[in-house]
């Protein structure tokens, strides 16, 4: 009886927020599915994708005349090298954005457009992140760790959240 009343009380408290609770559950579920897909396809999809980012970083650096070198997913400059791994390749952040977009009620077309645009933006922002971190390690090695662990990780998640909120504003314009 007491369990039932507790459940009823909890349900009564959740009822006014059922839309957001439903969204959070869907977001969590889609994020788990996105993780499963990415982690399961690490060698087949994520690794080649990361190699592509490393190659592009190397090419851009060479274009600017920096004596960069490339070895798989490692981009090197004299006395410093960066190995691009998960969390630095934007793959999981892209999965997170996709999960949030799929969890929010909208038409399939709007979702697809939103995902395609946002993933392109995230790819470019990530390229800037990797480039800035390699140059920072090359020029100011002492600042690399703080920029890598705190500043860029947080900026990247804020960009993910900003893109998603911007997409919602487009989907449900508010007067």
């Amino acid at each position, binding site marked *: 009886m007491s369990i039932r009343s507790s459940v009823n009380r909890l349900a009564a408290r959740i009822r006014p927020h059922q839309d957001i609770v439903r969204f959070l559950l869907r*977001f969590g579920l889609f994020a788990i599915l996105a993780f499963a897909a990415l982690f399961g396809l690490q060698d087949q999809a994520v690794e080649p994708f990361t190699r592509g980012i490393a190659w592009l970083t190397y090419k851009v650096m060479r274009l600017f005349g920096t004596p960069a070198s490339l070895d798989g997913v490692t981009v090197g400059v004299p006395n410093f090298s960066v190995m691009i791994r998960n969390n630095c390749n934007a793959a999981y952040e892209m999965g997170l954005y996709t999960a949030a977009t799929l969890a929010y009620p909208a038409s399939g077309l709007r979702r697809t457009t939103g995902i395609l645009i946002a993933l392109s933006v995230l790819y470019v922002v990530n390229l800037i992140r990797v480039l800035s971190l390699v140059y920072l390690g090359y020029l100011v090695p002492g600042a690399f760790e703080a920029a890598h662990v705190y500043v860029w990780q947080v900026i990247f998640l804020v960009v993910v959240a900003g893109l998603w909120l911007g997409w919602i504003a487009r989907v449900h314009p508010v007067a």
Partner: protein
Amino acid sequence: MPGFIQSLRATWRTFLLRFALAFLLTAVAWVGIPGSPIALGPAFAHLMAALGRPLIPAIETTEDTTYWVQGATIYTTRALVDPATRRPQRFKVELWKGYSSYDLILFASLMLATPGWPLRQRLRLLAIGLSLLALAEFAFFISTVEYAQHRSLPMSTGTVVYPPGYSRVKEVVSTWIYYFFQTMGRGLFPLLVYVGVIGIAWTSVPKQATPRPAPSVPRRNDPCSCGSGKKYKRCCGKA
């Protein structure tokens, strides 16, 4: 959500400025000012280790394994027999890095920067959100204890050494859980909690009553509103 977005649209510049400032302050509070012993990161690592102490013996399968905190990092020393040399070796393994827990800083900065909340409500929501994230961090820490048992260690042969009787299923499950926290969880949990908090806070705002239209006063030559059929100036408006 649309209500929050509307509010954010009007104040996004202030929001970003406040976020940058809040992030700077929380990051400094977490890591500490160089030379100062006061920092939240090491305190949080000690809290994680203290909470994990009663649970770890149920997870740990290798005897003579010790855990300790240094700075904001929790380490373990594992005693394993090298299969090549058959000699026991002790390995120091970095288990959980408090300084990498940027999810707490991110959430706190977002909460401090969000416009439109009174101080008391903001602090209450901040406390609830940080408690949830601390729970998630604790789950991550416990998953690292399990994961560390089959982690590749620098043996002379370079192979992984499993504790005796360690099951393959347990290895696969703990690896997936560990990497979920390590890769997706760092971003997912703060965003999930933040969206939940703003969603609930914004739907909790009582809806403003729609203002009643002002009672229309008939003009002098209009028919009177009492239904007498006379002009207003000759009926109710006479006085």
